[in-house]
C-alpha cells in the first residue's frame, strides 16, 4: 500500500495535470493550504485552471501565486477580499469568478464526494445566488437546488498522515480539507509529518485513506499568519 507515497510535490502531480482542468484546494484563508503542491502547480506551468477554494490566498502566498503567473482562469470561492492581484485581474476581465455561500461550497464538495449529485438548501433564497436555479418548496419553505462538485484533482493539507493516506488535522487547520479530500477524482494530500501505518490512533483518523490516492511529506512549511492578533 505504500505505493501512495511520493517523494515530493512535483512527483505527486506527475501525469495528473492538463490545461483547463478543475482543481480543488483545501484551506481557509492561509490556514492549512497545501503550500508545497501549490508551488509545484506553479512550476508545472499548467494553465486555464478552474480552482475551487474558499479563498484565493494573498498576493504573494497561497493560490495568489497562481494568479501572478496567470494560471487560473476561474475561481469558485466564497470570499476573495484579501488579494489585490485578484481584484485587478477580475476588474480587467481576465478572471472569471463564481461566488458560492461558504456553507453551500462546503456542502457541494461533501455531496460530490458522497455521490449525491445535488441538494436543496435555504441558503441564498431570494438573493442573486438563487438566480437560474430550481426552487422547490418543502414543508412550506422555499429551497434552492445546488449541484455537487467533483474535481479532477483535489489537493489537501493535513497535520499528520500515514503511508496509507489516513489523515489527521490539527485545530482549525481542518476546514475545507476533509470534504475536498473526498471530492477529487484523484486526491493528493501533503502532510507535515508522514508516519508508518499503525502509528496514528485509528479512533482519531479524520480522513480515511480510501479518499487519498497520493501522499507526500511537505518539504517546507511557512504556515504564514494572515492576521496576527494578540491579547492586550
Amino acid at each position, binding site marked *: 500500500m505504500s505505493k501512495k507515497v511520493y517523494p515530493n510535490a512535483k512527483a505527486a502531480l506527475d501525469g495528473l495535470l492538463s490545461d483547463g482542468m478543475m482543481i480543488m484546494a483545501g484551506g*481557509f*484563508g492561509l490556514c492549512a493550504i497545501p503550500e508545497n503542491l501549490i508551488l509545484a502547480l506553479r512550476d508545472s506551468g499548467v494553465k486555464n485552471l478552474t480552482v475551487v477554494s474558499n479563498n484565493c490566498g494573498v498576493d504573494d502566498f497561497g493560490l495568489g501565486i497562481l494568479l501572478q503567473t496567470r494560471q487560473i482562469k476561474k475561481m469558485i470561492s*466564497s470570499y476573495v*477580499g484579501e488579494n489585490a492581484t485578484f481584484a485587478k485581474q477580475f476588474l480587467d476581465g481576465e478572471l472569471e469568478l463564481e461566488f458560492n455561500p*461558504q456553507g453551500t*461550497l462546503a456542502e457541494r464538495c461533501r455531496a460530490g464526494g458522497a455521490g449525491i449529485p445535488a441538494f436543496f438548501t435555504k441558503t441564498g433564497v431570494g438573493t442573486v445566488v438563487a438566480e437560474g436555479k430550481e426552487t422547490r418548496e418543502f414543508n412550506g419553505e422555499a429551497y434552492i437546488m445546488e449541484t455537487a462538485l467533483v474535481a479532477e484533482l483535489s489537493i489537501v493539507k493535513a*497535520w499528520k498522515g500515514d503511508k496509507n493516506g489516513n489523515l489527521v488535522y490539527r485545530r482549525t*487547520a481542518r476546514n475545507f480539507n476533509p470534504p475536498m479530500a473526498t471530492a477529487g477524482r484523484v486526491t493528493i494530500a501533503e502532510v507535515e509529518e508522514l508516519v508508518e501505518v499503525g502509528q496514528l490512533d485509528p479512533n482519531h483518523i479524520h480522513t480515511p485513506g480510501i479518499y487519498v490516492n497520493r501522499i507526500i511529506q511537505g518539504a517546507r512549511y511557512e504556515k504564514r499568519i494572515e492576521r496576527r492578533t*494578540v491579547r492586550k
Partner: protein
Amino acid sequence: MPWTLEQMCRLAAAELKDGYYVNLGIGMPTEVANYIPDGVSVTLQSENGMLGMGPFPSENEVDADLINAGKQTISELPESVYFDSAESFAMIRGGHIDMSILGALQVAGNGDLANWMIPGKMVKGMGGAMDLVAGVKRVVVLMEHNAKDGSAKLVKSCSLPLTGKAVVDLVITDLGVFEIDQKGMKLIEKAPDISVDEIKKRTEAPFTH
C-alpha cells in the same frame, strides 16, 4: 445622546442567554464577546470549524493552525471542539446555532438584510453570511443607524443585493433597538434624550413604537 459602540455591544450582549451557541460576525459583532454578562455562559462558534472559541492568544500562544473566521489568531478553551467546514455549516444551516450577531449595510422593515456587496465596488464575497442568516434561529444586526453619508440604513426596501429575505429579528443601532416580525418593525428601546421624531427623520423604514 446616541449610544457609544460599547453601549451598543452591551445591548447586544444582553440578548445572549445562558447556554446559547452563538456566531459573531466579523468587525463590531466580534467585540460583543467582551461584554457577555456575568453568570451567562455562551459557546462561540467560528464557521471555519470551531466551537468554544477562546480570546485572542498571548504572544507565546499564537498558532497558525488556530484562527477565527476573520483570519485572526485566537486561543483554545478546555471546552473547544474542532470540525470541518461541511460539519460547521451543517450546524449553522440545520438550526443548531441559537443566535448570530452580524453587521449590515441595509435592513428593510420586513427583515430583509443586505450586508455583502456594494455594486460597482470590488466584490469580496458573501463568505458564510448567507448560510448564517438562513439557518441560525435568531439574527441580530448591530450597526450604525445611518451610513457615513447620512443616508438611512433602515430602509423600506433594500437597494443593495440581499444576503437573505426576511431574516433579521432584531436591530441595534446607536439610536435605538428595533424588533422585526411579520407585522413589521417596532422601536422597543431608544438611546437617552433621542426623540422618536429624530429617529423617524433618520429612518426610511416605517416603524411602530
